[in-house]
């Protein structure tokens, strides 16, 4: 299904790849896979940073396919604290598992790790870098709630500099020709490398420091958290964060059908009174992590069954992209 069997950055996923995963996720939601579909397959979970929910949703996904998860456990009990390199750790765990999920605090960790393993490796976040499975579930949520993915007008607000979900999402939205409005304080704008890529890809982007400049155009408003540690002092943080916060009154100025999303956990950037409005889709978004990750694993394990990325895909039971006519 995918050009390569690792899923490292949203940039590597073609529009067709993304649509294949989202279609499979929708099929899984309509008609859950039989429990024996990937019986006996093992997913190695390598989390060098805590992330209970991402870890749990991968675990739920592999179990729904009839497989099981192997968790290397918290980092303080693993070999990494004894000074073992990441390359060695993933090489060892790849020998136990049919696919690996990696979260690591260093940027580029997943790219590097993928050079050392033969099984599919999924990046579940590398520092301020990429988080492609979050992007897939974000896109799935948009597709289900905003009437498709083509030609959307999307606002992305908050910490655009360090927010890895934002970078992955922006790359992916570019493949669907979205108009993207980035709303943030000056100090948290998109990093140069991301802006470079978006321009190279012909993205339609604009940057704003005030949500009201674009709110009434948006079909999707994607809010992210501004973290305290990005600011030198508490006062400055409070002042800036307060300007990038929405509540039900804010959403009265938005389009009626505007979908509000957030990668969660939120702190106070979305007031609880938004939850009861029809705009709020962030809990549904969080739930979508399971069908989307189930779909992705299903496709990757199918590929592995049919010969680890060889050209023949005769075992596939659907018309997925990349199949030979």
């Amino acid at each position: 299904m995918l050009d390569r069997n690792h899923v490292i950055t949203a940039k590597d996923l073609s529009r067709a790849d993304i649509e294949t995963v989202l279609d499979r996720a929708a099929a899984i939601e309509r008609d859950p896979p039989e429990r024996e579909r990937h019986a006996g397959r093992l997913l190695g979970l390598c989390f060098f940073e805590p992330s209970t929910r991402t870890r749990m949703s991968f675990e739920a996904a592999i179990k729904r396919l009839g497989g099981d998860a192997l968790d290397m456990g918290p980092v303080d009990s693993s070999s990494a604290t004894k000074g073992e390199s990441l390359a060695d750790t993933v090489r060892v765990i790849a020998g136990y598992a049919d696919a690996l999920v990696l979260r690591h605090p260093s940027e580029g960790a997943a790219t590097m790790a993928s050079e050392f393993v033969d099984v599919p490796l999924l990046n579940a976040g590398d520092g301020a870098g990429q988080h492609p499975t979050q992007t897939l579930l974000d896109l799935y949520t948009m597709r289900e709630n905003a009437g498709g993915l083509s030609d959307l007008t999307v606002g992305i607000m908050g910490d655009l500099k360090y927010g890895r979900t934002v970078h992955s999402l922006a790359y992916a939205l570019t493949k669907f020709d979205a108009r993207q409005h980035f709303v943030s304080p000056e100090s948290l704008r998109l990093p140069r490398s991301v802006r470079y890529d978006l321009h190279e890809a012909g993205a339609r982007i604009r940057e704003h420091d005030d949500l009201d400049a674009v709110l009434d155009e948006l079909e999707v408003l994607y809010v992210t958290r501004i973290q305290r540690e990005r600011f030198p002092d508490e006062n400055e943080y409070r002042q800036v964060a307060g300007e990038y916060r929405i509540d039900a009154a804010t959403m009265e100025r938005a389009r009626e059908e505007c979908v509000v999303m957030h990668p969660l956990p939120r702190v106070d950037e979305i007031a609880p009174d938004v939850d009861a409005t029809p705009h709020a889709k962030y809990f549904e978004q969080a739930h979508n992590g399971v069908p989307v990750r189930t779909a992705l694993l299903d496709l990757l394990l199918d590929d592995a069954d049919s010969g680890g990325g060889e050209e023949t895909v005769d075992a596939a039971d659907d018309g997925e992209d990349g199949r030979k006519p």
Partner: protein
Amino acid sequence: MSERDDHELRVSKIQDGTVIDHIAGGHASDVLAILGIDSGTDEVVSVGMNVPSNRLGHKDVVKIEGRELSQNEVDVISLIAPAASINIIREYGVAEKNRVERPDVVEGVLSCPNHDCISTDGEPVASRFAVLDDGVRCAYCETLVREDLADHIDV
């Protein structure tokens, strides 16, 4: 004065080694940095700076005795001194004369300026940068380096 005369007048012949010619004036020190040549070096190195040149106005020339450059070193020199030519000398004669070419990728010579990058973390990988029109980009963390490439040379 012709460039041929430059060689004969200003830089004595070497038996075996490398002559890096047509370095843009003022960049010899960057080339030396790429090659890890500093005051602690054993090799015999001669440097000509601001030598008049027909092609460049002023050029720098670096000669290193007893050392042939690796492809990685040539690749990084190409980023800093795109007009350079590299002559491999064997037995007092030019054995190979190469104009440098910008490679698609440079490996192992530059180090990533991003301290959060996995390539700076003691892992068993060489640094790797894609070469763009106007700079280089880390293959791991995707950080762009456009200015002052010579500051990121890791030797």
